[in-house]
């Protein structure tokens, strides 16, 4: 591949955003001030991580990017010594995160890493199940600590107990300390996030590569089907909503829940019924931990959990009740999925003609099946359970700063980077301790207003798919399995850049997620709360789906998402429901309008807008 993408240093600053770099950590922008670093940056491939970030970064929300940048890389480079691969480097351009896999250039060094890798990774694979059990305990402790945190306003004066018990420390100090602990827990959680994930992806890459050797061109979705199919935790919240719907019908209170009332009003009314109380007790049981599920991906502070907004699960329960009373089946046909998985694996294996090929197939499949529970379930612990609680706590802090007059809106805090929030807290606290006005009240509103303008301009900019120089070979497991960076993706990006987009104005190219073709009216939903608007047979267009969206799959004819690959939630669920899905369109929710007549091809990933809504 001789052609190069645009040099990362040549990307123009959007007029009116000059100086945007200060919104992010200083090492994130591409820079020419060190010739060695600049040459390295030009020689690498940098691709836009649209899989995780369909929007530009709020400065504070970059915390997860920093956290995974460190954690993923450390495991490749310093823990397992993946022989040919070091970490994944990160940069930010006009608010969008670009990442780049780093290889080990020296063949001798690769050779030296081999026995170390075999010993270290070998230990984890041999003890996978017990280590994983231990992991769940560790994560449980981290989450308990986080849940126990509580941020409150600084008091006018310290409580008398501080005096009488001789505590000797102040609320300002405690606030700063707790803030540090909160950030620290977030980083710790992401350390654990990657404890198994690199090896899990290495195992999947092994199975994918072996599968492709044996059956050239076999879709990753098919390989996933062969290795998946157990009962992932991510489906548990949905299962709870179905259980609660069935229980409501059984108790005869389904007509109460069906009333067009908000969750809190419904709960008040249910309190009045004897059976209603019984049902509410079951609801409470389901809420912890299963309602710690994000209405989005968990990556952004704007997303909430079911526990933050009970209207979301209540609406889903209402839909479930309606569907059940129409006599339709809901839920995952787990037995059928398992049967299908075994049939597919068996039929593929039967095509192999030599012992060596059969062994390779069995070894690869065995690895993939070993690691898949972790690969799918860690997401619930980290991105859903931990993150939604984390955002709850940061919202407490942002409200404290808002009440102190630092921000017009509580949400403004997220335009500050992590270290700036600590500085703002310090400023607020020293103002409080000295009894004078802090500088923050005059400094931040103006600064945030400017940053909001910059952010808006970032939003209107389209980040190029890739920058820099494509490598000869990619060895980094995540880059291959998660982002799907291969010859053909790079080629299509290159040609897209050349012809200014290979698709016509009424066409949007995404990735195939689930097979089949559907045609129908589009329903563009930005928030899961809008699910009630969905009509039978419509095609759902959204940024991404999570278990919160589960009730919609009995209604829709197909789904189109901005974000995701063949292993994302929407693709997995739609394959199970037999619905066509196109994932990772990038801008589907912006280009398609509710009411547009669209055709989607889940086999080719092409979405065509046939007729615009009147």
């Amino acid at each position: 591949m001789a052609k190069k993408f645009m040099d990362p240093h040549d990307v123009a600053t959007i007029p009116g955003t000059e100086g945007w770099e200060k919104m992010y950590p200083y090492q994130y922008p591409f820079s020419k001030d060190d010739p060695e670093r600049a040459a390295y940056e030009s020689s690498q491939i940098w691709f836009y991580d649209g899989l995780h970030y369909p929007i530009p970064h709020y400065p504070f929300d970059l915390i997860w990017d920093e956290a995974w940048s460190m954690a993923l890389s450390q495991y490749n480079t310093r823990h397992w010594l993946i022989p040919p691969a070091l970490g994944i480097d990160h940069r930010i351009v006009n608010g969008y995160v670009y990442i780049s896999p780093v290889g080990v250039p020296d063949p001798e060094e690769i050779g030296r890493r081999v026995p170390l890798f075999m010993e270290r990774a070998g230990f984890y694979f041999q003890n996978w199940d017990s280590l994983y059990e231990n992991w769940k305990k560790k994560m449980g402790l981290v989450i308990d600590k986080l849940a126990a945190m509580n941020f409150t306003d600084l008091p006018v004066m310290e409580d008398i107990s501080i005096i009488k018990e001789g505590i000797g420390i102040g609320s300002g100090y405690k606030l700063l300390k707790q803030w540090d602990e909160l950030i620290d827990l977030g980083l710790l959680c992401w350390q654990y996030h990657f404890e198994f994930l690199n090896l899990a992806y290495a195992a999947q890459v092994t199975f994918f590569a072996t599968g492709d050797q044996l059956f050239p061109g076999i879709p990753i979705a098919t390989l996933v089907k062969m290795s998946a199919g157990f009962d992932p935790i991510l489906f548990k919240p949905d299962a709870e909503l179905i259980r609660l719907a069935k229980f409501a019908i059984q108790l005869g209170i389904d007509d109460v829940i069906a009333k067009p009332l908000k969750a809190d009003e419904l709960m008040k009314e249910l309190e009045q019924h004897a059976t209603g109380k019984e049902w509410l007790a079951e609801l409470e049981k389901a809420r912890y931990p299963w309602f710690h599920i994000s209405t989005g991906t968990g990556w952004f502070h704007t997303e909430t959990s079911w526990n933050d907004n009970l209207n979301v699960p209540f609406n889903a329960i209402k839909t479930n009740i309606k569907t059940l009373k129409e006599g339709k089946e809901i839920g995952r046909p787990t037995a059928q999925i398992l049967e299908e998985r075994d049939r597919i694996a068996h039929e593929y294996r039967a095509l192999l003609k030599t012992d060596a090929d059969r062994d390779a197939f069995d070894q690869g499949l065995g690895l993939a099946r070993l690691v898949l529970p972790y690969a799918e379930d860690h997401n619930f612990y980290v991105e859903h359970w931990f993150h939604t609680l984390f955002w709850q706590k940061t919202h407490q802090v942002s409200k404290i700063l808002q009440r102190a007059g630092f921000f017009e809106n509580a949400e403004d805090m997220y335009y500050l980077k992590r270290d700036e929030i600590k500085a703002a807290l310090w400023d607020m606290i020293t103002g409080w301790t000295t009894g004078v006005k802090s500088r923050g009240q005059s400094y931040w509103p103006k600064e945030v207003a400017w940053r909001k303008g910059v952010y808006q301009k970032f939003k209107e900019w389209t980040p190029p798919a890739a920058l820099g120089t494509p490598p000869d070979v990619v060895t980094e497991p995540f880059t291959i399995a998660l982002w799907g960076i291969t010859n053909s993706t790079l080629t299509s990006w290159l040609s897209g850049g050349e012809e200014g987009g290979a698709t016509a104005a009424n066409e949007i190219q995404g990735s195939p997620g689930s097979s089949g073709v559907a045609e129908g009216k589009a329903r563009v939903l930005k928030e899961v709360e809008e699910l009630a608007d969905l009509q039978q047979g419509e095609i759902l267009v959204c940024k991404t789906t999570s278990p919160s969206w589960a009730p919609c799959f009995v209604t829709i004819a197909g789904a189109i998402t901005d974000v995701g690959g063949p292993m994302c939630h929407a693709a997995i669920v739609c394959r199970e429901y037999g619905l066509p899905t196109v994932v990772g369109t990038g801008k589907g929710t912006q280009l398609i309008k509710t009411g547009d007549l669209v055709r989607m091809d889940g086999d080719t990933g092409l979405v065509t807008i046939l007729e615009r809504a009147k």
Partner: protein
Amino acid sequence: MLEKEKRFTLGYDELEGKDFNLVGKKNANLGEMLKAGIPISPGFAVTIHANDQYLIMTGIKEQIRKLIDPPDKQVSFETAKEASKIAMELVENAEIPAAIGDVILSEYHKMCEKYGSACPVAVRSSGAASMPGQMETYLNICGDKDLIDYVKKCWSSAYNTEAIMYRMNKGMEFLFNIGAGIPKMVNSRVSGIIFTLNPINGDMSKISIDASYGLGEAVVSGLVTPDTYLIDKITLDPIKIIKGSKEIQCVYRENASDIVQTDVPEEKRRVNCLSMEEVRELARVSKLIEKYYGTAYDIEFGIDADIPFPQNVIILQVRPESVWNKKEVVSKTEGKKDPMELMLGQLLAGVKIK
């Protein structure tokens, strides 16, 4: 209903392999394919018994039998040619008895009801003994009169000079009754070729379909760049679809059996010629054919414009795949002693980008 042996016609769906002595091998094979669930063009067989009764009832049987009797292994080309001329004239010029003609036409009229009046059919010879390519097949036959005329022509083709020479050489009788197959002419909106493997690398987990508009001629003879569909044999999901240019198509000239080329309209070139449900149905049927014969197969198909889905998917011809079936089986992977070794190997290899 009469016993099978006494009937003049038999539906394809009534036939099986062992009926070859009643209707000829080609017809019996079609019955066998149908039984296995392989969709073929709808139609019926005119039995060997019908041919025999035709000769008896018209009183020409003895005349024909005596032309070369007993069989003569040394028969000269001249003698065979002379006998051919007389026999063929006798068979073609006799008046078909109503008892036989009415039965054939009544079967034909059932087809016309389903697929349109004067439904075009083929008349294909089908002998109980193999005589590859010795006898005639007539295409695009429409209407009662032509059908009867061409059934007689088909019967008479058993007496063309080559067929006579062949039989004499084998020591067979001069008199030779054959069956005829009367399938609907497939009005191919789209047709093409299927391999039940990936013909490029021999990968058995794929089904490859090449398809273009009109008759199969365009694809078989490489007159067009067809659409290519690579299908996963196990899940039946498409893996790769390459749209072909499909500039021209072959069609039958109006009311004739010769083929002409016409341009494919621009808007039809730009879209895939097969719908996804047709692709899946073709893949499903191909898998069935491979399972039935137990090896990779090469299949010709047509999508009939007169018939609704899924019955419009019609298999025209099948034969064993000839390239990969003959190759020696080699492992595609190196043997590794355990999964860690396998993983190390794959990690070191990575994904080549160049």
